């Protein structure tokens, strides 16, 4: 019996011994980086922030549909025949047509929007991870760490802004924007958290708070890792703030931020002489921020890879586009408008956009913000705050570049407002604004170029179809997530 006790005693000693092996058990990973390793140096934090930009350009996000999502309903037009064996629309093209027609079911089949939803929240996780981890770093100057956090905040704001524009009605939809917005992610969630949607007002409050904090902390000496315009700068943050304020109708703030952006950018509008070449060569001098997608271009010159980019949808030079330009948009240009040149027909007669020149093995960087938009935002802000002369001047700065001679702008507020809105549609066509603008203005979508079978050629505001349904896949996995009315 005694030997049994010895055995038990010894076994107990052995079992207790294991705790000394902690260091032995902490092993590093070499293929992937563990989170703690990545966020142990500024170099790693930099890679995580570069990863945010990289993921913005994901095929499910800004590489393909997102830059022109808001152009599909009004500025796009389905072709007479689809690519299906019997001329029907199939696959990606069918999805684009359903986004144009606004005939959408919660499964959002073929539209790529469920993937966009996933990608957006994946990006929000990483942005939050950076925001939480970087302040703990012991490496690097405090200003540099603050600037890294600021970049993550801007991207968090941008993603929230995209989501709220896609899946929720614009702030003006209800009093105090109290209607449902999206699920906010302002921290990394717990494993079994089921967050719920918050009001549109709360979403915009976080977006503005993030951008304002970032405007104070962002330092271009750190963020401009290379000379190209692929990195965030304080001027870009001001421009984005001006854009966000235009959605909430906070016109004084919009005007102020537009002013700051124009002053801080150190750039001027691209002049008439280099405007068309700028689009053709993808180097418009007034572009403040563009996403770098050159990694997609294959080294070998004879490569005939076709990339999924906006050019694939309706870019000039594309022999088989998915959609074409609507005559509703084309008819808005006067004959002497320089921007007529940005529309061209391919061999089949489809009208296409030269803002996205198409070629095999060619990818344009995605423009995220350029000065013309900032001028037009300030024009709107000046108009809405009663500064008609200044509004008129901002309008003309953009308009006269393209139309040298023509009637002067209307002098009454109503007329000038319409002139500015039309100018926005012309100048910013195929850059992802039109349909979102209609929502924030509370304007109807009137389509006279409506040959295809569309249930409503005239989509009257308000209407559930101004926004997307919440993807079914997301609904099934979060019991606290509610569907948009009308879907």
């Amino acid at each position, binding site marked *: 019996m005694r030997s*049994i006790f010895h*055995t*038990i005693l*010894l*076994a107990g000693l*052995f*079992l207790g*011994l*294991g*705790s000394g*092996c902690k260091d*032995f*058990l*902490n*092993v590093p*990973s*070499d*293929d*992937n*980086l*563990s*989170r*703690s390793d*990545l966020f142990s140096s500024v170099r*790693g934090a930099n*890679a*995580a922030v*570069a*990863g*945010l*930009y*990289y*993921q913005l*350009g994901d095929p499910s996000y800004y590489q393909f549909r997102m830059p022109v999502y808001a152009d599909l309903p009004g500025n796009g037009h389905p072709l007479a025949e689809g690519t299906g064996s019997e001329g029907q629309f199939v696959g990606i093209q069918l999805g684009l047509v359903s986004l144009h027609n606004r005939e959408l079911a919660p499964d959002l089949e073929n539209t790529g929007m469920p993937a966009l*939803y*996933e990608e957006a*929240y*994946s*990006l*929000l*996780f*990483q942005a939050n991870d950076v925001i939480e981890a970087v302040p703990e770093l012991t490496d690097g100057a405090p200003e540099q760490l603050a600037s890294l956090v600021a970049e993550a905040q801007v991207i968090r704001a941008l993603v929230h802004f995209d989501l709220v524009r896609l899946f929720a009605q614009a702030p003006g939809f209800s009093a105090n924007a109290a209607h449902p917005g999206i*699920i906010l*992610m302002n921290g*990394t*969630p717990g*494993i*079994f*958290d089921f*967050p719920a949607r918050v009001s549109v007002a709360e979403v915009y409050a976080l977006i503005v708070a993030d951008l304002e904090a970032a405007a104070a902390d962002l330092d271009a000496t750190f963020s401009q*890792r*290379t000379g190209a315009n*692929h990195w965030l700068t304080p001027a870009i943050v001001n421009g984005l703030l001006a854009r966000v304020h235009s959605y909430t109708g906070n016109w004084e703030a919009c005007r102020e931020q537009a002013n700051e952006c124009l002053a801080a950018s150190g750039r001027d509008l691209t002049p008439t002489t280099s405007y068309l070449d700028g689009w053709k060569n993808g180097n418009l001098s007034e572009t403040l921020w563009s996403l770098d997608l050159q*990694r997609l271009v294959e080294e070998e010159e004879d490569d005939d890879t076709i990339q999924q980019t906006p050019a694939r949808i309706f870019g000039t030079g594309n022999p088989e586009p998915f959609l074409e330009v609507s005559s509703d948009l084309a008819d808005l240009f006067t004959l002497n408008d320089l921007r007529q040149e940005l529309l061209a027909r391919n061999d089949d007669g489809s009208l296409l956009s030269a803002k996205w020149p198409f070629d095999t093995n060619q990818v344009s960087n995605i423009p995220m913000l350029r000065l013309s938009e900032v001028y037009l935002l300030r024009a709107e802000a000046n108009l809405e705050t009663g500064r008609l002369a200044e509004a008129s001047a901002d309008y003309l700065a953009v308009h006269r570049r393209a139309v040298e001679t023509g009637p002067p702008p209307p002098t009454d507020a109503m007329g000038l407002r319409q002139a500015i809105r039309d100018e926005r549609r012309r100048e910013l066509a195929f850059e992802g604004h039109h349909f979102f603008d209609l929502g924030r203005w509370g304007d109807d979508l009137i389509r006279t170029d409506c040959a295809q079978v569309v249930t409503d050629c005239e989509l009257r505001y308000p209407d559930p179809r101004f926004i997307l349904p919440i993807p079914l*896949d*997301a609904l*099934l*996995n*979060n019991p606290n*997530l509610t569907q948009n009315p009308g879907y």
Partner: protein
Amino acid sequence: MGGEAQRQQQFKQVTQGTQFPFDDLRRLAVLKKEDINAAETTFIKAKASTYGEMAYNFDYRYYLKINARRDANSIFGGDRQADIFGAIGTAWNFSNEPALVDRLPFGIDYGKLRSSYGVTGNSRLGVYTTNGVYQQRFADENYGGQLPASVTLPANDLLGWERKLQTNVGLDLGWRDGRFKLTAEYYSNRTIDGLFTFDTPRESGFTSILANAVSLRNWGYELTLTYRTAQNNKWRYSSSFNASRNRNRLLAISNEEIPARGSATAFLVGRDINLIYGIPFVDVNPETGEARYRLPDGSLTSTREDILNPFNFVPIGRSAPDVYGGWHQHLDYGAVGLTLQINYSYGGDITVDRLTFTDGQQIGFNNQSVNQLDRWQQPGDIATVPRLSVENGAVSRSSRYVYQNNFIQFGSVNINLDLTALGYLPDNWRTARAFVLVNNLGYLYGEDRRENRNGVREYRFTFPQQRSLTMGLKLGW
């Protein structure tokens, strides 16, 4: 008693060269830089264990066995790297009990009652899943000339060992010096902190996550009967037959999962996890030829949206069988040996891949099943197969694709001939055997079927299962 520390380190480096100027001189040094490709991967994992075991028996009547171990593994993060496991087993060989020797009923000459209880651990995890993982991108995958890192897994300190509490009671009985044996066993296993990959809210930034958050009970019976003739017979025959039955219930889960699209399983507390969920097919509408399905409220529908909605899914089958097992027989007669293995399964269901036959719903692009001859063709037809369609999306989660899977499989036959024993070969040959082995002779299915129509026999496997015939000769000298 002992201890064990293990560290596994893999380092793999591959260098590849192309465009060698002279094929005879395959040296990297002669190549241009751009024609050389190098890659490497590394992998490290550490494990430390200590264990002890104690066994004791008294007079070959009472047995006691205790063991314990502590396992720690580098793949768990935080303070849950280690866990302790143990087991205790007892047995009573009652046929050696002096009071019972030669007094057992029914001619039993061997009897043993045994039981065991234990805790075991399991760590079916990839490496580093607990720390949060970022993927560092290289080369072409850059942004503005910088190399980005993207998150692939969130930090997960809640991961640890999955534990299984196992209880087992068994009875062994023997007759006629052990030539006839019966073993009956009952087990009940409880998995706690079970590892499970959960679908997560898309808003979390991930589509799924692994967590110790499931509790499951498995229980069942096993019965084995064996018989063998005496060793010195000219005819020697042995046979072993077994039958098993297994049940399970989900006891707890942090987040119940309904059968989301594409999946036929659900994880609901109090339910069997082998249930197949889907929409029950009822009949074909005689007026329109459309398939009608039953909604949970009892009404019939042909509306696609309702049919595909996972919230309308109910159990339509169970993938695990009620009883399954096998029968192994072996016969020796002189130099000839014959082995036959039979497997069987009863009470299970199987979901047939809808792509093996497009079921008349997308007739544009695939071959159709002969069952389409029974389709609805005109108003008034009472049919079992809906009308044809060019582009009807499949209703893959419906009872139309669930079949009973009761079968007897003739698993293998092996005939063995000992050529030395037959005296055909010189004595100095040590072994000389010829054999014929046939694997998978075929299945017998029990199902209601119509003549010249397809059923589970045809649909179960996309391609007919392989049958192999092996003939061999084994010589040794």
